[in-house]
């Protein structure tokens, strides 16, 4: 029964339960078909839709691991999508691959600058992270609207469309991009000392500084990484809808991302983090969204359904709840 005690057992169980509940409502839910060498099916669709949330989530995980929080991710998504669409719209030939790549690079570089801004406010000026990133959260949507002049910019670029809606080696490109970023994050944090240092800063900024860790530089770095992830997520989002909508892009994604991080077992107080947990959390949230549609829950009750699943999830994840209510072996002492 060792796997029951695994940190990610309960989120995984809820995910399986959600997926299983779909069988009763749509029989072909688990079938994956191949058209023109591309995989199609509800499972693939869930993965494709979770790509932006996974990206934002892994950036958020590292920020939260240092004891911070990044509320500005939604705004950064909007800004990077807006800049990319603006530059693509100005191209003579919107289908030029190099032009599209440069536009995307510009969006990512701008995200990087915004990440440096957030990181500097938190690490160098010493503003509380929730307020420091709130500034960009509020102003960021304004900046995105300024870039698009308050309009919704539509682009008709085939290469740009590939990022969010295209396929390569049988899988959606957005899923591969997300997987790539997860791989980079895992390698950087688990194959080098970086992850250990981030956990040290999150555990105690003062102690880690006294131990000779460059806490300030590290903190700026995680905010930059979070902003870059959000920037790429913004490109995927805007490419998927072939337009830049400054209000809809990444709206409320910061809450879903934080939720994904916490479902994955990372504590908001900083310290230990789990990237695999965050990916699982992000997929779980997107499955929840897809399930509400596929089992035909009316629009009015979608949020209520989500609330109930989140409540059940955070209760079964709580060791204290299991000990008191489900009468499982107590782990309260160990985890507290």
């Amino acid at each position, binding site marked *: 029964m060792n796997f029951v005690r695994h940190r990610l057992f309960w989120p995984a169980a809820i995910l399986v339960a959600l997926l299983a509940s779909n069988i009763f409502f749509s029989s072909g839910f688990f079938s994956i078909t191949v058209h023109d060498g591309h995989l199609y099916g509800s499972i693939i669709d869930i993965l494709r839709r979770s790509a932006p949330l996974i990206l934002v989530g892994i950036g958020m995980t590292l920020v939260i691991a240092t004891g911070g929080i990044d509320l500005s991710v939604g705004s950064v998504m909007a800004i990077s999508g807006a800049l990319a669409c603006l530059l693509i719209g100005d191209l003579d030939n919107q289908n030029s691959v190099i032009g599209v790549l440069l536009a995307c690079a510009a969006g990512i570089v701008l995200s990087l600058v915004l990440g440096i801004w957030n990181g500097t406010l938190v690490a160098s000026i010493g503003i509380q992270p929730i307020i420091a990133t*709130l*500034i960009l959260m509020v*102003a960021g949507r*304004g*900046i995105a609207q300024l870039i698009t002049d308050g309009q919704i910019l539509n682009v008709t670029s085939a290469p740009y469309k590939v990022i969010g809606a295209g396929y390569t080696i049988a899988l959606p490109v957005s899923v591969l991009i997300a997987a790539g970023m997860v791989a980079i994050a895992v390698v950087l944090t688990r194959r080098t000392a970086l992850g250990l240092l981030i956990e040290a800063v999150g555990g105690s900024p003062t102690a880690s500084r006294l131990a000779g860790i460059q806490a300030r530089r590290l903190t700026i770095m995680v905010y930059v990484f979070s902003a870059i992830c959000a920037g790429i997520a913004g490109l995927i989002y805007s490419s998927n809808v072939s337009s830049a909508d400054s209000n809809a892009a990444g709206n409320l994604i910061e809450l879903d991302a934080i939720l994904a991080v916490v479902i994955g077992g990372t504590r908001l107080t900083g310290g230990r983090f789990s990237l695999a947990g965050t990916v699982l959390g992000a997929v779980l949230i997107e499955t929840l969204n897809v399930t509400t549609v596929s089992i035909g829950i009316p629009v009015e009750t979608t*949020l209520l359904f989500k609330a109930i699943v989140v409540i059940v999830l*955070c209760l079964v994840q*709580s060791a204290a709840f299991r000990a008191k209510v489900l009468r499982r072996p107590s782990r309260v002492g160990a985890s507290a």
Partner: protein
Amino acid sequence: MIDVTAPPGTPPAKARNRVLKQNRRHVPVLATLALLIIMYAVGVANYRGFSDTQVVLNIFVDNAFLLVVAAGMTFVILTGGIDLSVGAVVALTTTVAATLLHAGWSAAVVLPLVLLMGTVLGLGMGAVIHFFQVEPFIATLAGMFLARGIALLINRNSIPITDGFWTAMAEERIRFGPGVFISTSVVISLVVVLIGAYVLAYTRFGRTVYAIGGSADSALLMGLPVGRTRIAVYTLSGFCSALGGVLYSFYMSSGYSLNAQGMELDAIAAVVIGGVLLTGGSGYLFGTVLGVLVLGLIQTIITFQGTLSSWWTRIVVGVLLFAFIVLQRAVTRRSR
């Protein structure tokens, strides 16, 4: 967080030192007050009619509900927690009140009922946070989804309120002279703040709140009722949100399930601008009042500016917030 700039080992040898130390704790609030006055002076210097007394009173009139909500939030943040559900509870309160009044219920029944509902919701979240050791961020996020979900389930449209008591409360003006007035909501909010400030400063409950924020473990070892107090602050915040919702429905004369989106961030921002640390244990309710005034003054300046497009408004709010936080940070840091 450990404050290394003030080593805990320093004994308060002289009485003069203690006075200085006492003053140092007031610095964030005093800095906010000074900057608020400067901001007001800049407004007076730049805009015709800004010096009108009613301009200041209108900030109170337009933000009475936020003041009440932020007062409840202050208690929660002082214990080191957070309450994301406040905006949704405000929306739920306005929706339920409007629906019941529309159905012909008496205001004498509806008013206690909605206040009770908010209080019970807060109690529930507090109980989950304490007994099941769920992170406050996630428990109240679930509460936010739940409250907003129920509100959407009840009615997706705006419901006008025509009840006699409600309109009387909405239209009643307390006049100090020609064109100088406040609404009853302002009186209610100020009473809430005064009671809150008294409770925090002079009662056993208030001191326990600070003790938990300083260190929950130490508070527990001191024999303080940590569990009861922690549940109580969320209950209190639930009550304040419901009362804020009632004031909001006075202000808008309607109930709408999409009311007060993002009000939780306004409330948190007001509390933090007022000098309360998000880690808990330090800050004053008076600071929160100043924080609400800062947010209100920013809105007023933008209204007086008049010609801003919606995106420039967002950017200006962000820039003003940034200028304020950085100045506050600079002032607070220099005095140390």
